[in-house]
């Protein structure tokens, strides 16, 4: 039942926030903050008071909720939480808090509607991370999309409609592919077993012919890689990020992208293990290309949010590489990268928003020399830039290192290509510092340094980033059992192998 | 009673239909367009009736009744629209009221 509450609290909170704003009772931001903190508390409380794990088809689950929904089609309201899901839910709620704090002063009109959308996105995302019925999963997949569309389209910057529609079409079209794949999967499962069901556990062992499995896997893969996003389906991201309000960017980068990676780990690979193994070299290549291509693109940008958006693509390339490397080391690295990227990119976007509020531009050519007037802000941005470029001791390094270590086992050539990303990462990360904080001051009046609210928000994220970088082990053990279903694939490229 | 051959009836109905269609296509005044449509409907009705007579079944007459009701309803709405249009544009020229361009 705890799982249903996790979903319902932001859902109800969203309605309350909207109503509260209409009736001018309380600040909807406060309502939102309280809702998210309550949800966060419940999750943490649940983690410490949880019962013995429940085992379903060989997997350990911390909590499971199974209700009949549309029994005629074998659709159930199935929610379950395991280590991976728990981490993702925690990340979601944490970044939700950050998003609220970062938009505290930015949003001034239709506040209630804005926070309503934020909370409903949260609700949808938590649903995605917990639902284990494919129909329900698809339902939440769409639910998180629509409020996000409004966040970008209503509260965004100058070119918001274009960005919102682009975001919508990309996700919707790829979601359609996933829906088709889900229905086809259920159909073929029905053909072989005579049971109509959308239940994840029952579909796990579906007997499919190799070619059917391959096509269905592609349907899932394209949906998830669009969300991830990986090259060449990434182009909605820079536009969406650039135009979204700060909170939108934070949630988009920190949370929504993770749903794509989560989908790969939870659904695309375990449902079609053989097909995925066969497809792995292609997927890993896409990952490696994403890393390098997006890194180069990031360097070229002059719009700060666009730059950060491309770095997201680059980082998520590591996730793609790790998920398909087919060993646990890389998979752990992939999840660590998801968490780490959630922190760094969210923090950088929050700062891009903070700077934008101060000087009303996102164009880095009009910035420069901010260190003099805002040294603390400079130091914090420097911290997150350095984290983003993979400094050991901070969270991103753990993820990237493990991904590359595992991927090296699977495919040396692609790992070597991906390692070029390590060289390009400082190129794009440090240019941010150079253009904004170093150099001569171009803006006449000094920009104000960080406020207390921003400091608190950033300190929270710094603590998590350092914590994950120095003591990642507890987190990695938490996720361990969730990654069992990623098959250990023994494929190697002979050309890249070094004979002894 | 001398039965009129069904071919003749059908020929007449086709001719009436074509006349009506021609009227719809070439007239510019909406009233005339509506009248031409009436002719087309009646041509079809004639075809139904003659068909019914030929096969000795009531279906044709039934369909004609339907067409008459339809035509009545259409005229009622159509004339109302015509009045509205005339009040708004002070003309009944169909060319000048072509606002619904793509």
């Amino acid at each position: 039942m705890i799982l249903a509450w996790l979903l319902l609290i932001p859902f109800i909170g969203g309605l309350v926030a909207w109503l509260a704003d209409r009736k001018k009772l309380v600040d909807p931001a406060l309502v939102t903050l309280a809702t998210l903190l309550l949800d966060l508390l419940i999750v943490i409380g649940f983690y410490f008071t949880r019962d013995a794990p429940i085992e379903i088809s060989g997997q350990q689950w911390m909590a499971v909720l199974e209700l009949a929904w549309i029994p005629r089609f074998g659709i159930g309201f199935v929610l379950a939480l395991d280590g991976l899901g728990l981490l993702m839910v925690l990340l979601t709620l944490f970044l939700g808090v950050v998003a609220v704090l970062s938009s505290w002063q930015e949003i001034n009109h239709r506040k209630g509607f804005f926070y309503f959308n934020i909370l409903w996105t949260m609700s949808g995302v938590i649903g995605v991370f917990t639902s284990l019925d494919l129909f329900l999963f698809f339902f939440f997949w769409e639910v998180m999309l629509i409020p996000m569309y409004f966040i970008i389209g209503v509260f965004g910057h100058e070119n918001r409609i274009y960005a919102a529609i682009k975001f919508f079409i990309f996700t919707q079209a790829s979601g359609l592919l996933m829906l088709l794949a889900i229905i086809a999967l259920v159909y073929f499962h029905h053909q072989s077993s005579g049971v109509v069901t959308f239940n994840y556990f029952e579909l796990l062992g579906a007997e499919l012919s190799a070619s059917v499995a391959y096509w269905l896997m592609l349907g899932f893969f394209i949906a998830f890689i669009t969300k991830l996003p990986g090259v060449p389906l990434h182009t909605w991201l820079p536009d969406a990020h650039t135009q979204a309000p700060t909170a939108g960017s934070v949630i988009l980068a920190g949370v929504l992208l993770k749903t794509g990676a989560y989908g790969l780990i939870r659904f695309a690979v375990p449902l079609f293990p053989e097909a995925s193994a066969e497809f792995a070299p292609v997927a890993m290549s896409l990952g490696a290309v994403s890393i390098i291509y997006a890194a180069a693109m990031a360097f070229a940008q002059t719009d700060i949010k666009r730059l950060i958006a491309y770095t997201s693509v680059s980082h998520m390339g590591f996730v793609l590489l790790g998920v398909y490397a087919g060993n646990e080391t890389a998979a752990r690295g992939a999840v660590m990268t998801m968490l780490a990227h959630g922190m760094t990119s969210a923090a950088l976007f929050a700062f891009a928003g903070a700077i934008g509020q101060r000087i009303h531009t996102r164009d880095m050519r009009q910035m420069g020399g901010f260190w003099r007037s805002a040294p603390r802000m400079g130091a914090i941005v420097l911290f997150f830039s350095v984290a983003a470029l993979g400094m050991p001791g901070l969270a991103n390094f753990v993820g990237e290192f493990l991904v590359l270590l595992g991927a090296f086992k699977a495919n040396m050539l692609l790992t070597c290509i991906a390692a070029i990303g390590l060289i390009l990462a400082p190129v794009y990360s440090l240019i941010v510092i150079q253009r904004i904080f170093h150099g001569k001051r171009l803006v006449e009046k000094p920009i104000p340094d960080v406020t207390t609210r921003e400091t608190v928000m950033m300190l929270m994220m710094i603590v998590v980033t350092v914590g994950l970088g120095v003591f990642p082990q507890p987190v990695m053990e938490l996720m361990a059992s969730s990654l069992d279903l990623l098959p250990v694939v023994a494929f190697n490229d002979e050309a890249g192998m070094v004979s002894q | 009673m001398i039965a009129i051959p069904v071919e003749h009836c059908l020929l007449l109905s086709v001719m009436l239909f074509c006349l009506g269609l021609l009227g719809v296509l070439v007239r510019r005044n909406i009233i005339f367009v509506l009248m031409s449509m009436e002719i087309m409907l009646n041509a079809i009705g004639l075809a139904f009736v003659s068909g019914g007579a030929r096969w000795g079944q009531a279906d044709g007459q039934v369909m004609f009744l339907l067409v008459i009701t339809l035509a009545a309803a259409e005229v009622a709405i159509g004339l109302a629209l015509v009045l509205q249009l005339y009040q708004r544009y002070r003309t009944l020229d169909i060319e000048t009221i072509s606002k619904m361009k793509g």
Partner: protein
Amino acid sequence: MLEFLWLVPLLPLLGFLLLVLLPLTKRAAAIVGVGSVGAAALLTLLIVVELFGLSSDAQVFRQIYWTWMQAENFTAQFAFYLDPLAAVMMAIITGVGFLIHLYSVGYMDEDPGFARFFAYMNLFIAAMLVLVLGDNLVVLYLGWEGVGLCSYLLIGFWYDSHANGYAARKAFVVTRVGDALMALGMFLLFLHLDTLDIQQLMANANDQWQTGSSLPTIAAALLLGGALGKSAQIPLQTWLPDAMAGPTPISALIHAATMVTAGVYLIARTHELFLLAPDIMFLVALIGATTLFISGFTALVQTDIKRILAFSTISQLGYMFLALGVGAWSAAIFHLMTHAFFKALLFLAAGAVILCVHHEQDIFKMGGLRKRLPVSFWSFMIGGLALVAVPLTSGYYSKHEILFAAAGNENSGQLLWLLGVLGAVMTGLYTFRLIFTVFFGEENTRVHESTVGLVVKLPLVVLCLLSIVGGWFVLPLDHVFPASEEQAISGITSLVTDVAPFVGIFIAYLVFHQNKALADAVVAHTPGRLLQRFWFSGWGFDWLYQKILVNPFMLFVRINKNDIVDSFYRLAAWLMRLIHRLFGLTQTGRMQWYVGSIALGVVLIVGAGIFS
């Protein structure tokens, strides 16, 4: 005291945190900054004394703190490993580091970024200690990247100037090229040897790999890549001269005494792996010899006092690589230590000079400073003599050990030795060109009569002392490295090696003191001028990289700024709009057209139905 090993890197780290988090006054910042490193140095002294008090085969101490990362068979403990090699490095880092911190209190006195400077410096010391103490390659890599970051931060310390920022980023990115190679080397080692724990790794490598087989060769080559980047050897040396944009104490600490020697340390630390790859060993020696030779010529034509010293550093690092390559491990570490002393001394003295002449760095705008700045002059003189390896100075002992080892190497030893000796001549030449130009001749600059404070003088004096007596120690590294067999050195070799620096000094005396017109005459002719320009640019490496790497990259990103991939989607959107417009054309708004087309359609369809 050994159990307090963890405290040594932690002290400077705490200093860093205090300096970053608290708004300290200048005085407090100096106390925290210098005090934390001083305490670390003191603790290091106690630890080193205790370590060397143990019996020689028990001089190993490992401390495991927590499991950093673990997945499948991969485990990285957060652990420190102390052996004589690490102890020597620790002593150098904290000792020289403390002196330079002390000096910085005077040097940076008027800088508004005083606290920030000490914060970065403390972080650097902490990272460098982690680097040398790391028990496995991952912890080593933590320090490795950490020092790279501090180097970046400190080169770009004066952030107002774009050139400084560029130099800082160049340093970071170029060394990162090496780091990426090193990371790949780590992956390869782990894949085949199932561990990244250095000691275990070396043991496994010895067990499983045969000397000269391809795997150790590739692994060693990849690690070498990392070492080349950090230690500024060809082909990754281009960042170091630009790194002189940072404050002078930084150049002394990071870009001469400690960080740039990390590559030497890495190879020495993994020497067993390199012994399994004789080809790579020879490559190391060759790269070292080439680097020392080439940068010697480059140093000769520079005009910026710090750039001369920078190229000299590259050259001296080349000697260390030469030593590593011929298997003279302790000679390499020995030279690392003496070089840390005398090069830090030279930089600090240069810093004192620069301060006194209003931040002028062009040596030809100085001159005759000998009488005005006696402390700097004598420091420079002693450092210079040690650098050119004049007998009885520390540099003499270490450099000779290296050259003799090179001469005795069976693998093209003569060539390596010859390059080394020519390099020694060049060292004498460029060092005394600098000294003659700056300190002798007539005075042509106004000297800022600032009383150089005690905090500046004391480190100079201590380093002067160390530069002289530093060579008299025998480093207790016998148990870390395999014993190198005594080479029989012929008398001629020995004599030539001894005389080489004096030749350089003598030429410098002739050309740059006695007859200054000579140098101008050489440069006046076209070949001379071209050669000078070529050498001045560092043998064209920067130009080459600019052309083949940077420009294509910049071209690509500039052309592709709007993302070529997106144009496909834009094309799709455009196509949709086109189709939309085409269909829109049929929507004329004229009823007759609609009726006509309906009629036509009916006729066509019915016709098709009838006639098919």
